[in-house]
């Protein structure tokens, strides 16, 4: 889509305006120079970049860990058949996880905004309270949503617990909503108008060119066609698989089954076949699998005595509640 003003209100030629892939490349470059391992997207369906093992499992234990990656996320219920300019059932997050959280992490984060062309001194950048909790992962943290001129562009979280275990040291997670951020930078009002790529000859691909048909088809699949019997069966089969693999102390492949269960549950939810009372039961089943994977990871990968960790975490929670 043609445009002539950037976020700074200054006239620019469209050549300088960063594309969707420029934004990703800049973020990768920036966090790479901060010493992060740049991973490629995880090859399993996830509802959020947090659910990727490189975040959720690696946040456990004492070892230093720094990573950044793009992750495609699926939220079947958010599909709008490509008709809503702000909602997608598949979208991208740029995820950063650093453990332990650096003292200057807020400044590092602001540096990443500068790296993608946002002159933070000219804008109203705010850290607005937003605490994060994932009931399915037994995880929670405190932090903010970051606003630029009123627009939420990033979730910023200090992880306190994962899988019911106390995080020590504490990881910091930054989750950028790439579509929204790029819409803001490019000044477009519809996700589908985001310029994804632009060749030197002027050939332009928009987000719509790349994903509009995908949204139409998957919305229809998620809401109308996904085979619910198959999905119920898949949920149960993946649950058994997870538990069986955990017996072999293989937390990583077992965790893949947790993700499969989550996705099957999300699809069933979109299909409207999970009643309100069953819903909680399914979430609890996923949570107990996720916790078991975290426990196994701590015990067999990190090498911590899980009994002690669980006890400490219970006490920690008690302190905070008080």
């Amino acid at each position, binding site marked *: 889509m043609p445009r002539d003003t950037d976020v700074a209100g200054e006239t620019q030629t469209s050549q300088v305006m960063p594309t969707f892939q420029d934004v990703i490349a800049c973020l990768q470059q920036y966090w790479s120079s901060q010493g992060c391992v740049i991973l490629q997207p995880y090859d399993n369906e996830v509802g959020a970049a947090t659910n990727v093992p490189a975040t959720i499992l690696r946040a456990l234990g004492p070892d230093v860990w720094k990573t950044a990656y793009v992750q495609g996320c699926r939220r079947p219920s958010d599909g709008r058949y490509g008709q809503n300019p702000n909602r997608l059932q598949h979208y991208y997050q740029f995820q950063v996880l650093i453990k332990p*959280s650096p003292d200057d992490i807020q400044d590092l984060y602001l540096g990443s905004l500068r790296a993608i062309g946002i002159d933070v001194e000219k804008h109203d950048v705010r850290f607005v309270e937003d605490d994060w909790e994932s009931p399915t992962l037994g995880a929670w943290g405190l932090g903010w949503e970051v606003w630029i001129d009123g627009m939420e562009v990033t979730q910023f979280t200090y992880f306190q617990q994962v899988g019911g275990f106390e995080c020590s040291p504490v990881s910091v997670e930054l989750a950028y909503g790439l579509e929204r951020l790029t819409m803001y930078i490019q000044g477009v009002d519809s996700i589908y108008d985001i310029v994804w790529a632009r060749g030197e000859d002027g050939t332009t691909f928009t987000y719509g060119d790349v994903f509009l048909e995908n949204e139409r088809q998957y919305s229809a699949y998620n809401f109308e066609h996904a085979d619910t019997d198959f999905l119920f069966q898949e949920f149960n089969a993946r649950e058994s698989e997870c538990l069986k693999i955990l017996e072999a102390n293989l937390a990583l492949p077992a965790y893949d089954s947790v993700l499969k269960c989550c996705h099957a549950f999300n699809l069933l939810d979109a299909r409207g076949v999970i009643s309100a009372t069953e819903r909680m039961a399914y979430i609890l089943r996923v949570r107990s699998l996720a916790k078991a994977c975290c426990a196994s990871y701590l015990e067999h990968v990190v090498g911590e005595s899980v009994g002690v960790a669980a006890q400490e975490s219970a006490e920690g929670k008690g302190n905070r509640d008080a």
Partner: protein
Amino acid sequence: MMLKTKTLAFEIGTEEIPAFDLAKATTQLETQVAEMLKAARIAFERIEVYSTPRRLIVLVFALAEQTDALAEEHKGPAVSLAFDDAGSPTKAALGFAKGKGVEVGALERRRVGDTEYVFALKQTPAQKVAPLLGALLEKLIVSISWPKSCRWGSETAFFSRPVRWLLALLDDEVIPVNFAGLCAGNTTRGHRFLAPGPHEVSHANKLLDVLSAASVMYSQEQRTQTIRSGIAAVEREYNLVSELPANTLLEVVNLTEYPSVLVGSFDEAFLKVPEEIIVDALLKHQRYFPLYDSKHKLTNRFIAVSNGNPDCAAIIVAGNERVVRPRLSDAKFFYEEDLKRPLDYFVARLDTVVFQESLGTMRAKTERIAALVEHLCVAAKLSEEDTTDARRAAYLCKADLVSNAVVEFTSVQGIMGAYYARAAGENEQVAEAIAEHYRPRFADDAPARLTVSRLLAFADKLDTICGLFAVGQGPTGSSDPFALRRGAIGIITMLDDGLGVGLYAAIELALDNYGALVADKEAVAQEVAEFFVTRTKVILRERGYSPDVIDAVLAVGIVEPAQIIARVRALSAISAELPEAMEDLATAYARANNLADKTLGSTVDLSLLQSAETALLDALQKAEVQVSGFLAENDFAQTLEALAALRTPIDTFFIEVLIMDKDEALKNNRLRLLNRFVEVFSPIADFGKMAKTQRTDTC
């Protein structure tokens, strides 16, 4: 002699603290610092506490350089117990000395009255304050209590959000304060973007100046004033008015260090969307203040409070306007989508929404509300037509909870339902009942306008209260997640306003509606009734009624809030109008009640009566007839006037008649007469509770 004093400046520099937590912590700090200094016997002239999202500041002026010396005197056991026959200290003396931290040999003997006791005398000399401050301030940091706190990095300390710097100065001297791997220094930071710093502070008295120069409005008060006057200027300029809900204002004040007020606008086309959703989107989601015209109609302008560089206002406004657009187009999209379906469709989908874990879905709740409304319409003697509307409104009242618009903008529940109901051709009374059945939503909120709406509100609130009590989830202490207290206050307000239905019968029916979920119906009904009585009592106290009058009415065991309130009101009115008569009557009642021997009954032998007794009996008979008549009409003012007429006869009786006559028959007959006197009062209130002399009478 003037003692030398200094200024203490202490700043806890943090990452952004949540707005409401910050406000609470700031209030806490004022008292905590004063208590901390008093406990350490450090004199000071005054304390100032300031805060911004990134800092908590304590200034103490004219802080003494030395602590106050302390001479303590503790009285111990009697000498006879402190030393044995041989003059050696006993266990009692040893324990006492140890407890007070003195040698047993240092105990002194002093006579108090006729007895000699041992005393422990302790002298704590004055100390230099400076070396004590580090430890005190470290304790102060951890003593701040936060609703939620976190750890960060590899630290084990907790705070609302990570602490990034500490400044502690006593005049120009740095006080070493250690917390979470940090050591206090003499540098602070400015506004994150306008003057980040670090900035050196040469003297405690200079901290505020340094912050002002670094674009930090350190005072919550000053930020509030700046925002208010900025908004007032906008209102004048555009000839519009804004609404500033206290919570949102506080949030905005505590989301900024250097606030500036900006005006933005959005496409007028969005004004076709129901106003309430737009206001929700602006206020709740974005913390913008909507602007209204002189007829209080929403306009397409709004106020945003920025923390950015005021020179960049144009860019910031443009950005904020860009955020509003998708929000409002979402709202428009949701609204239009919702309108494509009949409300019945949403009712069916209510079984996907949980009301409460053990209490089933909103669909089930809808059915219970409908059953309760059916009963209430009969009790309130509603017309056929109104009953039909009430029934329809009950069926539809929760439907909008699964509409797109309410899922996205929760505060418009009910209101959207009404829009959709009208669009679906429901009549106005049904639509209004759907919109208003959440009322009253908070203390001082007006109840719904129409009776049909009120009955629906009553049913909804009572169903919630009964259900949660049935599963043991009634409110405890400060925890009331389902806002049951507020719900009860709403019901009581409506009853007091003449809703004309009985509460207790409705409680029983509400519990029946839950069927097998209620294990012990009688016990729960009792508990719920008591809950309402307590709420009624609280309301009456808040309205300023005397606790004696309230207790007097409650003592006779009425559970209907409307009756309790009416009686308290009448009793208070007559006590104010005829204070002496009522006091006298209360005293007489208390006296009679103390003497009363219920076992004797109240059948009086007429042949044994003297004239004063006959006069009392006549008055009683007359009062009995009047009281039962007025009570039947719930006319408490007249009832009380009838009782007031007993004042003279009972006073004369007590003066002229010797009750405890030697003749057993006479005595018992007189006691029976007193029993009858007490009985006239018993259905109305326990007047003894209002008697000033009651205590001396009974003791």
